């Protein structure tokens, strides 16, 4: 156990936890917008997979990681529009239509990968961005200021999300539409316009989550996300529909995963107990967040399609 409590190992473990949290954070922040306006999108993982493939393929062909990220954004945005048409305009059952989007993303990303690439080929990864001076601080520097740029973007998105939801008219309308769409509608707020906007934001951030995952790993493989999109949806519930809550949930999940991996690496968790340890991130995150989330209520109109006069 003493091997674990060395500065180098602790810092490496924490940095690993931060990296593992990033795709979850992007995806769950996006889903928070949708859910705050009353729309549950279960298709996040499918959008992530297509964003991941789009980003991967763009980098494979051009070597430009920023173009890859842009393609992830565009793919996510387009699928956000599709999701919004289905759940807002057509008022489809949100659970079922989300699963449809997920299956579409799972199948289509693999099909495109098989047809356009075939055997996995490595791509250029995001460069590391060491923040001048701050990255030189012992321990803290390596932990917080020596990451790829998407890591900073993900954590910057948290205060931006908080500001939008809590301090802007748009955010107030999102909350109003999520709590009481009839009242919002009677005050002249377009419920469908707000929900379109939030679902598209959700899709875009899911696309970014996927692209950042693929480009940070430098590879694509069938079902690359391994259901991270579903974990992100759960984190929104357990993070009490608040950007800070989902950030803490993402970090907790990432950290527990990283700690378990490190304990396995050092044989503190022996291989024959590895499968029990693998459950720890999910169990600890759920327990911790359930305790916190009990004090908060879900948006009242969540999962309910809105139709004027019904």
């Amino acid at each position, binding site marked *: 156990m003493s091997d674990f409590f060395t500065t180098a190992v602790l810092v490496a473990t924490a940095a690993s936890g931060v990296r593992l949290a990033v795709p979850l954070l992007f995806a769950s922040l996006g889903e928070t917008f949708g859910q705050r306006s009353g729309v549950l999108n279960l298709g996040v993982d499918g959008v992530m997979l297509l964003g991941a493939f789009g980003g991967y393929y763009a980098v494979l062909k051009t070597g430009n990681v920023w173009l890859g990220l842009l393609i992830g954004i565009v793919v996510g945005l387009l699928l956000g529009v599709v999701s919004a048409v*289905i759940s807002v305009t057509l008022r489809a059952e949100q659970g079922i239509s989300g699963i449809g989007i997920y299956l579409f993303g799972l199948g289509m990303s693999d099909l495109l990968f098989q047809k356009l690439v075939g055997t996995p080929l490595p791509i250029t*990864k995001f460069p590391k961005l060491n923040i001048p001076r701050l990255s030189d601080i012992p321990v803290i520097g390596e932990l917080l200021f020596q990451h790829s740029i998407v890591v900073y973007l993900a954590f910057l998105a948290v205060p931006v999300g908080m500001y939008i939801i809590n301090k802007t008219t748009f955010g107030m309308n999102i909350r109003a539409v999520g709590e009481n769409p009839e009242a919002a509608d009677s005050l002249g707020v377009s419920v469908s316009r707000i929900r379109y906007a939030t679902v598209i934001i959700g899709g875009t951030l899911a696309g970014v989550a996927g692209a950042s995952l693929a480009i940070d*790993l430098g590879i694509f493989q069938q079902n690359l996300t391994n259901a991270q999109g579903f974990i992100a949806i759960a984190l929104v519930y357990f993070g009490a529909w608040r950007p800070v809550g989902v950030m803490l949930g993402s970090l907790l999940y990432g950290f527990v995963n990283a700690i378990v*991996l490190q304990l396995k690496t050092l044989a503190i968790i022996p291989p024959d107990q590895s499968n029990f340890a693998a459950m720890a991130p999910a169990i600890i995150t759920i327990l911790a967040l359930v305790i916190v989330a009990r004090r908060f209520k879900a948006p009242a109109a969540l999962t309910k399609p809105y139709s004027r006069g019904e």
Partner: protein
Amino acid sequence: MNQDHAVHDEGGTLKKHRLTKLIVVLALALVAAACGDVDTTTTAGEAETTTTAGEAEATTTTAAEAEPFRIAIVAPSASNDLAFTQSIVDAVNVIKSEMGNVDLQVTDGTFVVEDAAAAIRAYADSGVDLVIAHGSQYGGSLQEIAPDFPDTSFAWGTAADTFGLSNVFAYEAASDEGGYVMGVMGAALSESNVIGIVGPVEVGDAKLYVDGFKAGVLAQNPDAEVLVNYTDSFSDVALASEAAQAQAANGADVMSGTAQMVVGAVTVASDQGILWFGTQANQTSLAPNIVVASQVYHWEVVLRDIIAKIEAGTPGGEYFKIDLANGGEVIEYNDGFDLPADVRQLGEDAIAGIKDGSITTGS
């Protein structure tokens, strides 16, 4: 009256909305299903050597003069995963080029055992001569399905159990042997004397390989530290990547790993200049700068025997194994890596020792 009309109209609108929803959901389901179908019949890069479901009929007609030997593969990951599934698809393609008149169908990507079971049954039902269920997780399904099709031969692996069924062959790889050889070379190349191995789940082929590699390292250098990390997932590329980062943080300068998720670990090794040993397929293309060698499976060695048995009237009931001695396992070196001659010689000596029985891998 007017009220009635209003009710009717509202009812009509509601019905219209429901119909629209239904159409959207069905359309999405169809698209998803279509993706799945195409996906499951795609095969390794060499399109000309394989057939999709739609082409199967045409292939059969053109070869009508002699009935082709029909082989179907059901496997968990992609046909070109540079790992487990690719090893069997490549092997059947070798058999196909040797025998000529072989019709091959592949259903890959069946991580879900129920999907694999449905595919196995469908192939058996369509009169395929040999259905290969390439995944130890498919054993339970095969045990149920095989007795329903006594005229069809099944092969499954990696496993040693034929369930006492006369139409089931079992096959496995002595993956510990190649693992041992590469472990010896890895220990000789390591300067930090810390070596990392990333595995999926501690069972079957993966456990054999990891244990063999570890035994090889310790045989060469008893003081070396071997870090073993099972991620408990065959598909979580991100976890494999982080496992490799954890091993690197603990000083590993030589690594290996098994199963399809290790591509995540290979890119980490490549970034950090850590040497890599691959298994199941030649992984040089993933990182030509750091891959030293790969243990490559040649399942065609056992498939030849299995097909010969079937043609001689024995539909199953036997167990086969590939290893270094029978040529089913081959260590392929990366020509682009400058491997010191003395280290290569250590590897060749280990191969010779395993073949003649003077070295045991401990597994």
